[in-house]
């Protein structure tokens, strides 16, 4: 059994770290499925190949986390049907069904990757050791996904700013609302179906984390991502202020 992460020594930390891995693996599998579905929405064969490649990259992230969790003897619970992850996936599929590539890209590479990059970085810094290294290195790779989409979305904004901002606003409220409910200090839509027992959020302090800071950092990165795409601040301010909390 791997013992490189000193924080796994008590039952509380064992449980929290197990939950952190469960959430990460579930999220990666959702990402993998989303990219696979995204490939369907694209006509250009090169972009299709790129989407499949991305799906494979998310698969390898899931595999990396799974492998580590097994080695460390963590109790992992993967559940793609959990309340929040399932809802996010449904939102994605609804846009994929309409072959709305831009909306799909925004959900997967801006909304989900902002949360992944920020939360993996926070978790990585808090856990330290081998587990920390793993979270941080995957955060780095996710950041590339985020940067990649920014280019495409900027281009889209250049073509028709008003239509683009309207579309992004709609996708924001459809999808970001779910993540805001999920990441609120208390789950706003009930149990996530991934964590053991009650939600891990109350126990994050055992590994030096707190849910409010993690959520705040994720929202901050998301806001910066919106800035980089070129969404006016007066819009993003309203979008963030109107989220459930």
């Amino acid at each position, binding site marked *: 059994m791997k013992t490189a992460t000193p924080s796994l020594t008590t039952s509380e930390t064992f449980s929290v770290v197990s939950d952190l891995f469960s959430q990460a693996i579930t999220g990666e599998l959702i990402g993998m499925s989303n990219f696979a579905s995204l490939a369907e929405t694209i006509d250009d064969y090169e972009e299709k190949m790129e989407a499949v490649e991305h799906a494979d990259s998310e698969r390898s992230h899931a595999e990396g986390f799974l492998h580590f969790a097994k080695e460390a003897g963590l109790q992992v619970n993967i559940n793609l049907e959990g309340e929040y992850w399932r809802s996010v996936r449904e939102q994605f599929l609804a846009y994929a069904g309409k072959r709305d590539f831009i909306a799909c890209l925004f959900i997967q590479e801006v909304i989900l990757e902002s949360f992944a990059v920020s939360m993996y970085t926070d978790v990585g810094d808090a856990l330290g050791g081998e587990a920390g290294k793993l979270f941080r290195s995957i955060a780095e790779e996710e950041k590339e996904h985020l940067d990649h989409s920014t280019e495409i979305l900027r281009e889209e904004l250049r073509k028709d700013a008003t239509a683009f901002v309207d579309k992004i606003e709609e996708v924001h409220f459809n999808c970001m609302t779910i993540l805001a409910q999920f990441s609120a200090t208390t789950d706003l839509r009930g149990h996530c179906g991934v964590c053991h027992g009650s939600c891990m959020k109350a126990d994050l302090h055992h590994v030096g984390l707190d849910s409010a800071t993690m959520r705040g950092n994720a929202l901050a990165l998301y806001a910066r991502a919106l800035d980089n795409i070129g969404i006016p601040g*007066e819009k993003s301010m309203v979008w963030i202020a109107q989220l459930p*909390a």
Partner: protein
Amino acid sequence: MDRPASRLDFAVIGHQDSWANIHTFVNRIRTPEQGTLSVEKVKAIFPFIPARDLFRVTVTSRTGDTIKGVYIDTFIEPDKLGVTNLRTNLRKVEDAIAFAKKLEAPIVALGGFTSIFLEGELSPYASSNTRFTTGNTLTSAFIVKGVEQAAVENQLDLRSASVLIIGATGDIGRACVGYFQSRVNNLLLCARNKRRLERLAGEVKAGGGRCTSAIELSTLLPRADVIICVASSSNLALAGVKPEAIICDAGYPKNLFRDAADRPGFLFHGGMGQVEGGYRFEPDYTDSFYQYPAPDIIHGCILEAMVLAFEKRFENYSSGRGNITVEKVEEIYRLSLKHGIALAPFFNDNGLCPTRPKVSSI
């Protein structure tokens, strides 16, 4: 950055001075279906938001010219302006400055706490076309002209008055010292750092002015006919003040206790101007944000950037500490009046100050 916004004439960087204001602002944005958020929930989100433009501002000059700008908030927490949070706050100001540069604003006012950046080192800004101003020169102008006006309304002859300046060694404080040293009977100077205070008092005396300085405010308060509050501290108490004293609180956040407005005498919030041609926010948050008891009132520091934008004088007009001369105070005040930007009517926490009867019965 590729933005749907049109060309900007100016930008303002600022921060909010109370959680109550932020709470109102956030809930004003939310719809009834989204429900209101408690102060605690607002506090859990607001400080994380990176600097961004909250609304556009259009200002009209008396000359008929119109300029367009944006307000960029730093999301600095109003109760964390002290030294313990200096690093975090400086990073937030830096973020806001980068944001203003991305928007290619030609002139930017650094309001309230954020002016700390310009009061120090200027070189980080040399790299872009954006120019910055603390706005402290026009703020100083509105303070000194306001005090003169209040003295007239209250039949106080400044030439025989003792004028106390709290925060005398600061940028605005020194501008006030420079302006009043030859115009009043006696200056009373207060700040916490004794060495700097004594050096300033020495300069005033060397220039032929009469002054007393003390780090203990309480020893100066009973002697003052006029009190100008330009300190970077809040909740200062006014024990022992003459009942008829004229008090100008120009702090942001306010220097004095909230209940100071209930004391006798004449207290007004100084450093404020009013735009004759009016200003407009888009989106229009004026029903919950930046509310004053009379229309079109704005802080002097913000107005300075607007005046410079009207004049197309894109320069670091107010920067460093202690560089504000009487000539510059007069210059920016004159330019301000040219565009219909004048002293705001006197007001405090209780609303507009009642005008005193001109003939005293005493």
